[in-house]
């Protein structure tokens, strides 16, 4: 066996260091890449929670019916469908029809 075919201690150390460096880079990269996904998962969960309770309240003022959504959004209810916040509503005569993110799926 010649010295050319034997791995030196120096090479082994460099090998180990490079492996470790690559491993650390891979872990950091994986965490960094994952972060938007983790954040978007939290976003989606909190969005689903807020949408699950999003509804309309109704009231009357001066003979007209008003719909009140969240965050102070309100509008008069007309006889054609219109949006109030993230809900839609209209006055069908005898009844006010409305659909909000908190409503159960249709069908």
């Amino acid at each position: 066996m010649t010295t050319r075919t034997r791995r030196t201690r120096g090479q082994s150390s460099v090998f180990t260091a490079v492996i470790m460096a690559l491993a650390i880079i891979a872990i950091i990269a994986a965490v960094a890449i994952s972060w938007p996904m983790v954040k978007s998962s939290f976003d989606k969960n909190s969005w689903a929670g807020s949408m699950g309770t999003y509804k309309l309240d109704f009231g009357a003022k001066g003979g007209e019916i008003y719909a009140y959504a969240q965050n102070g959004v309100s509008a008069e209810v007309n006889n054609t469908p219109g949006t109030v916040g993230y809900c839609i509503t209209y006055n069908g005569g005898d009844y006010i029809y409305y659909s909000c993110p908190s409503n159960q799926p249709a069908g």
Partner: protein
Amino acid sequence: MSWVIEEVITSTMGFIIAMVILSAVIGGGLYGYWLYVNHITLENELMPIAEVVPYQGGYYLAIVNTGYEPFTVRQVYLKGGSTLSVNTKPLTHNQWFFEQTNQLPIAVRVCSAIDPRVCEIIPVHGWSVVDADSLLGIGWVNMTVLVDWWCHATVSWAAIGGDYGTSGSVTVSAYNSFGEPAYETVSVRAPGPLLITIDSSNIYNEVTVTVAPGKYFCSLQYIPQGCYIHPTGPSITPLLIYHNCGVYTCSFEWMIIAEPNTALFIHVSCYVHTGVG
């Protein structure tokens, strides 16, 4: 040949080759993971809301982008099993898309405008109803006016506190009913409280008006008791606002206020009372 392979594996060149392969594997793995994460992130950031209300014999579908990732609406799934293909321009934050359909839409397919391969099928939210009359304070006042023999009564009503123009009257006479009482029933669609006036007269000198809203009643007699209230509790207290007695006849006017969604029983009875004028 074996010494060549051994040379490649163990020499510095071999070391470099190993590092390159390792880096390529890690890099490739990270790239694949990045693609996956990107897909999931775009999917998570899709925040569409679809709603439907019945409208004009069909359905009115509305889709809004509540998030910040723009998307396009691709397909609407109808309850009958058919699919409606739509291809909207990208909806950005708080933008709406509306569509009228003949069949009930139950789900829609939306795709990210950033990466059209990222799609989501979302259910369509159904609707609720609210009684418009109850919101406006509108309700029915049902009145039964019962008039005894020899009495005559006119019941008039008018909406108060608003410019709704609801008013009317009904007259019931039992002058010539040969011992039988006469009655009328009337239902008034009231946009708020009704002011009800009961004018009655008879050829004698006393009239009793009993107003019974639901299970309660208040009995009014001008002579001699005045108004007394049934012990079960009053809900209406009529007011005597006018009376005038001549030699042979007396006229009385009573006033009450009725809230919507009440039933009134107004009984005008005659009583022969001598000696009092």
